[in-house]
């Protein structure tokens, strides 16, 4: 449904994206992760035709944004972090003006969307009187007019309270369930991404460094957080039994080794076991692991665009 191929972009000679390619299946919620300046917003900018790539292209529903901007964007709705509306106009007027750029304004469809995002009672108020949460709801409403097939969300939950974040998450998940909406989601809130996304792409310094299916994380063998004494003595024992030490206090077990047997053996060999708890690797663990690994690498060379 959405794909980017070989995207390269530099700003003032400074590389922002280096040969980034990925695709998002129809009906998938895909997370785009990375540190500040990793190239996430530039990628979204290219998909929306706001940024012209030096090389590569973005396709929405098979249509190139760079070659047929209007036809490609007719399928897209977008929400940005801190959306800037016309403050001096009402929410309704904003919807009317913005959706008017996509085609004739349909008041009935707009009313339905407004009710659905829970803004019905305030839609005729000026936007300058809206809270941040209400602005995000209005942003969501405008992105759904007229009905898009793909939603691009650029840090949409930033600044929202926990209730707002949960509401937003549920709303997006419902949209996917009802309409099979494809979503590309860019956020720093990894727990949020983990709960919503099917797959994630991680960017670092303009390069794609990792792509994973989040279901595979759930099926991974757990790691164990342990509190043992003496640690050195336990490590010798681990070496003999094929146990990997991830970091002090964190181990992973070979598939054939039962945790209960390992604990009994440790106790039997005179190691005092205060705690031994399984923890599943979270997206945050994976993200930090990957970014740490890449930060240890030498500076990535910039490939100049021909």
């Amino acid at each position: 449904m959405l794909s980017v191929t070989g995207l390269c972009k530099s700003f003032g000679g400074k590389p922002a994206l280096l040969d980034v390619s990925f695709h998002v299946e129809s009906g998938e919620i895909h997370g785009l992760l990375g540190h500040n300046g990793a190239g996430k917003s530039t990628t979204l900018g290219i998909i929306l035709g706001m940024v012209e790539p030096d090389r590569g292209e973005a396709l929405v529903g098979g249509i190139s944004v760079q070659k047929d901007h209007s036809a490609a964007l007719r399928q897209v709705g977008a929400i940005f972090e801190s959306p800037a509306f016309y403050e001096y106009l009402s929410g309704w007027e904003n919807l009317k003006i913005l959706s008017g750029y996509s085609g004739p304004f349909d008041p009935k469809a707009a009313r339905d969307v407004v009710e659905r995002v829970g803004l019905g009672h305030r839609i005729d108020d000026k936007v300058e009187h809206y809270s941040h949460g209400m602005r995000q709801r209005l942003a969501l409403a405008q992105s759904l007019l007229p009905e898009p097939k793909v939603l691009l969300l650029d840090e949409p939950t930033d600044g929202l309270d926990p209730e707002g974040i949960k509401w937003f998450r549920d709303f997006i998940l419902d949209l996917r369930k009802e309409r099979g909406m494809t979503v590309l989601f860019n956020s720093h809130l990894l727990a949020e991404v983990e709960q919503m996304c099917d797959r994630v792409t991680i960017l670092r310094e303009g390069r794609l460094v990792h792509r994973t299916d989040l279901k595979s994380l759930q099926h991974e063998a757990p790691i164990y957080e342990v509190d043992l004494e003496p640690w050195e003595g336990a490590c010798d024992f681990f070496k003999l039994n094929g146990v990997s030490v991830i970091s002090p206090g964190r181990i992973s077990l070979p598939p054939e080794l039962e945790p209960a047997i390992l604990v009994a053996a440790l106790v039997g060999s005179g190691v005092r076991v205060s705690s031994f708890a399984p923890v599943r690797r979270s997206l945050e663990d994976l993200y930090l692991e990957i970014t740490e690994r890449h930060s240890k690498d030498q500076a990535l060379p910039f490939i100049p665009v021909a």
Partner: protein
Amino acid sequence: MNFLSQLRGELRKLFGRRRTYMGYVVFLAMEAIILFVFKLPRSQRSMRELIETNGLGFDNYYSSLTVTYWIMGFSMFLLGSIYFALVAGDIVAKESEDGNLRLVLARPVSRLRILLLKYAAVSIYTVSFVLFVGITGYAMAVAALGWDGGLFVWNYKMKVFAVFGSWGDGMGRIALAAVGIGISMITLSSIAFMFSCFKMKPAAATIVALSILFVDLVLQEFPFFKPYEQYFVTWRMSNWVYLLEMNISWAKLAGSYAFLFGLNATLFLIGFTAFRLRDFKT
């Protein structure tokens, strides 16, 4: 059809902002001051001298139409230009600065269309502002001097001297001149609009546009620039006054307005090129 509904939205945005009305309020105040000064005995004496020296009757030509001509002709260039530059300088740059443009650019609409809509809105604002000044100026003048009387036109710089004895003739010409000023002023708006399309602050776009206008005006006053006066933008913009000549020289007017239309188109194209090449990061 869709262009018209989008233009309506663009006008709603433009006229929904308080600063758009700043010029209207200032002009109303200025018109009141002009009329007040016109009524003072020393001002009347000076006007009487000017009119009677030319062998005309003061009572007929010291009229609401003559005052309207003075208000429009002499205030629009220096004061009106500030508001045209302010509004046109804002129209793209302010939306870009505030981030509104991101929401627009995320829509299936071409950048050319976005700029055409904004340019049309600015042009409508410019012409409507001039007409507003003309209508309110005339209404105030009628309240102060009565509706009757002819029109006395005198412009030393453009070498135009004309008198229209009847109210009907005078009114027709002043209405025509108001449209002429409006069209001329679009050029100033076009200059500010072009800068607004570049990556710069709205205030910078306004100031640069006004600077160009004032430099053009100042240079024009130098005696050795006199042979080249037709190449100055402000000189061409002043040509609306030829609409008030006793016998209108349409060829002269066509030449000037063709120059201005050509310039406007060039400014728009430069602005569009700059806007087209810009990256808007989310």
